[in-house]
């Protein structure tokens, strides 16, 4: 059940299209900066398959110039 956050930079002039494309991906929330071409992307997937599908979806976005991982948690095993 991983949770990740990223900084996403669109190709020049592609900000709106990138927002739309990301909004269509399941398990993916976006928070666009109001004054810069930059989006915070937060993913919250239920299992590894959904995470892998989402990663494929992210990599296929032509509007996306770069995606930098900032935070990740994949619910490591609880200590007994």
């Amino acid at each position, binding site marked *: *059940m991983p*949770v*990740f*956050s*990223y*900084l996403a930079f669109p190709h020049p002039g592609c900000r709106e299209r990138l927002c739309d494309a990301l909004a269509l991906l399941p398990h993916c*929330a976006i*928070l*666009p*900066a*109001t*004054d*810069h071409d*930059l989006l*915070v*992307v*937060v993913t*919250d997937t239920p299992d590894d398959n959904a995470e892998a599908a989402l990663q494929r979806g992210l990599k296929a976005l032509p509007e996306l110039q770069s995606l*930098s*991982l*900032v*935070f*990740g*948690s*994949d619910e*490591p*095993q*609880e*200590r007994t």
Partner: protein
Amino acid sequence: MKLDRRQFLVRAATGSAISAATALFPGISFGEWPKIAENSSVVSWHKAPCRFCGTGCGVLVGTVGGRAVAVKGDPNSSVNKGLCCMKGYHSVQALYGADRLTKAKVRKDGQLVEVPMAEALDLVASKLRETREKYGKDAVAIYGSGQWTIPDGYVASKLFKGCLGTNNVEANARLCMSSAVTGFMTSFGIDEPMGCYEDIEHADVFVTWGNNMAEMHPVLFSRMLASRRRRAGVKVIDFATRRTRTSQAADRSILFRPQTDLAVANAICHEIVANGWVNEAFVGEHVSFHRGKTGIGYGTEDHFAFTDEEQGITFDDYRRFLADYTPEKVEKISGVSAKDIKYLAALYGDPALKVVSFWCMGMNQHTRGTWIQNLVYNIHLLTGKISQAGNGPFSLTGQPSACGTVREVGTLTHALPHGTVGNEHDRQMAAEIWGVPVANIDPRPTYHTVEMFRALDRGDIKFLWIQVTNPMVTLPNLRRYRSGALKEDRFVVVSDVYPTPTTDIADVILPSALWVEKEGLFGNSERRTQHWQRVVEPPGEAMCDTWQLIEVARRLGFAERFPWSREEAIEKIWEEYRRFHAGPKHEMAPYETLRARSGVQWPFVEGKETRWRFNAAHDPACSNGKAFHFYGQRDGRAWIWARPYEPAAESPDRDYPFWLNTGRVIEHWHTGSLTRRVPVLHNAVPASYVELNPEDAAALGVVNGEKVRLVSRRGELVLPAQINGRGLPPRGMVFVPFFDESLLVNEVTLDAFCPISKQPDYKKCAVRVEKA
């Protein structure tokens, strides 16, 4: 508004990304989100320094239901102003790896078996006593770390040096910053940087000397780039032996051949003198000139000993010494064009430009580590660019408390919390504060780190207690030291939080509390002491390292020297330790102040931190009535040293034609024992590799990911090639990160060291490269 844990994680992830964006674009707006995020009552936040690098970022650790769940940058910390790097954001996950050590283990019939903690501590105490009685006081030793807390190191030193009477106390910081110490001591007579991170907001030019700050000190690097974005004309010059992420972001990247930084630094000084850029008023008032021995060796043989002999010289002598270092001559040695040398000299020499030089392992892990520090100080001293906002040489440290615990507490064989064992006054002070007879403190240093492990191999040391470090990954020429530690009658105790190659060779493993599972203090690169409280419980029987030492001290009959209750111990230890540093040169903040604030810089005098030492406008210890006072040296001046270029201990030749350089990557902390338990960090770089220059790779017929064998005179290693990855070595050099315990590059490296600092050189040895 209450959040469940999952919602909280999403919030933490979002908050971290917003902090990162804010660091990149100060003032960036995300509308109403930050207000919503703060409006959660489920999480409590607690201040702490980051567990990882020597930058010493202040963080806030979020806890829910007794578990640490998130980290954010502490906005009250002037170090990082709310920002963290990826290691910092993920640091709490290092507490919860599935294979955390929670019970003590003792080797019985060759197998490590779980025993109650009290039984293991009994065994440690009885073995220590027995070894000392049978073989003498110097047959027992402790080897700690720049990740020891200040109380850990202080108690270790008091027990071993004060009570047991042996100077067999060393720490892994010997491997990471002892050249920085000897550099300071020889140039200024007193340790630790004169400047502070605020320099970053004032400098016009930054020169990174063999220092990949983008990966090793990422928050400071972001601060430097933010400073460049905000102010026109600010430049970053990367001066290194391979291209890195720092070179990519720099305005200019200049490569030099390994070891020849010595020659280039002298050539810069040559140009400064030749062009009349010497700040004569500053030099006349505040500088004196010196030389020492040359041809000083490399320490590769057992029992190597060296003592420098200082001789005063004149400015004219120094000028004559520099005559050998014209840019044209040095171009031939270093591969740096005379034009680039003149360019660097012109930046340093321009009185209108403020210049900061940053360095860390590139200059420290160097067989002439002390010399290269002296030579970079020379540049700043000749131009008077020192001890002022935005002007200064800045030696960064690698570990979170290499300064706080090793340099300030003095957890090295020759040192005491104040001064050295060889100094009678310092011994008397220690004996009085520790409440031990002065005769207990031996005036002779024993073994520096490499020699300590040689002594274990020879059998001169029989009992070794290792805390918070992983020498079976980090020692150079590792095979010798691993086989030494495994010899029949050696007894090795290891305190750690996860199984490592070092716990593999242990006779006793003591499970340790980690970071916010205990109260502690660290000291970072800019003389900043940071306190934190315990905010979560350690697992199982894990115990803080300070308390492990106290438990053993009590079993050895020293209860009166360690009388504190567990609740008050850290406060009492701090207040006892602080007595060593009383006075304006090193005064430490009281416990209550440290508890309340997100870090305090020393000297902390009459409630005021000291930003720039040796500068009379800032430093209360200046007493000569002048603008600057270098009070550490006996003549009240800073010392310029005539130190020549001398070659590396081992250079490429026909049989071993490549340089091997080793180091870190941003994702992993040191040997990876913590960060490899953090899935995101581990998955980002799951295994080590060897960076190859693309032309060398083509000549070898190797493509990306293909296996390559590195062979040195000490060992060999097979690992995948990385070509055009994050780092790009020049032709004839390979680079290997050392975080991977299954690919031990230190079986290949050489245990040569700087004869003055005794710090090994992990950046230079000769290897052969073959397609595997």
